[in-house]
């Protein structure tokens, strides 16, 4: 199989989010929509990751491998795609320009 023709989409957290963390859950405030959301541990973990830097779905899946329980790890790709979709629909995460190709 050859190289993929397009670099993968990356996702980043919307800027200026505010959060209160309480144990393994968080309350997050979106300063553009003025909406407030309740997030569970895996959503927070993914959001944190995407605040640090834009990542692709594959990156997020790899990250989740490390934090998921062994019996869940096979589904990491699925979880990652679902979490990114949910966070996007809440407006907390958005797709960004793909990264420039490494060999240009």
């Amino acid at each position, binding site marked *: 199989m050859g190289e993929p023709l397009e670099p993968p989409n990356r996702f980043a957290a919307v800027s200026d989010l*505010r959060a*209160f963390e*309480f*144990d393994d*859950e*968080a*309350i997050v*405030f979106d*300063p553009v929509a*003025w909406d*407030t959301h*309740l997030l569970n541990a895996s959503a927070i973990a993914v959001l944190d990751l995407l605040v640090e830097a834009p990542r692709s779905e594959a990156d997020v899946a790899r990250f989740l491998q490390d934090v998921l329980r062994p019996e869940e790890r096979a589904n990491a790709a699925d979880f990652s795609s679902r979490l990114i979709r949910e966070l996007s629909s809440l407006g907390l995460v958005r797709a960004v320009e793909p990264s420039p190709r490494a060999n240009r």
Partner: protein
Amino acid sequence: MRIADLSVDALLERLSFSGLALDFGAARSRIRSSLRPLAGMLRTVYGGYPAEESTGFFDVNIELRPVPGIRRFIRPQCEVVCDGVRELEPFPLDTPLPLLEWGTNYGLATRLFCYLMLHAGVVERGGRAIVMPALPGSGKSTLTAALTLRGFRLLSDEFGVVRLEDSRLMRMLRPLALKNESIDVIRRFDASAVIGPSFPKTHKGTVAHLAPLAHHVDARHEVADPALVVFPRFDASAGVNLEPVKKARAFARLANNSFNYHALGPQSFDALGRLVEESSCWQLQYGDLEGAVAALGDLLERTPSSETLQGV
């Protein structure tokens, strides 16, 4: 001098002309009315309030008057006008006090964006507040009333008024609206409780109002620190059952059960977050009112204040 020290005639004079001033703490209202029966009712349920001058600026102006026109011979009604606007449906003419109370609550709930206004009953002891969100089936009013009759001081039965800059709880002292069976429950709970007349024909059933104690009224300008958030659930078959609630969940339930959380954006987010951080959050299932009051007292004792926790 308190309102209970005025004669009904003197009260009626104030109501008819310059208006009757009522200071709830975080806000003041001025009431005007020509309805004679209302004067006696107000003397009972607002008896502990100071008889203040009615000149100056008031947060909300309420007029309670008979509905004019042909109707007044067939089915007499009264209506409430809040700052010149008729917001609510009229009530039967013999049910003025509940309409006055609901009209005032409506006015307070819709114009004060200077505070975060939760929908909750709030009491305090030793300056430490218990916030009890008002959900259906909670029995919140009965529980709040009982607490105020057992050594807790009332901040409000309806409004958890949170100061935006520091999340302290402010007072919005109003008569407590008791419904149906609660009226007798509270009478039995404390025979000396001052309860106004019962109004059987309201859309919520029979309503009567418990007058706030005079020394609670005197404290209306004091603030309290957040300490406990308790979600009450009345269940006649239960004894007393306290379970912890996760703080993020408590935040969500408080925000969804508020009058203006969403309109205040980042300010209410910060204020509510700080309040929840400083509070211990619980669910209380109870069928035994005395037991519930005792349990909350215990819980408050056992809960260290957030200053203690931070080692301040």
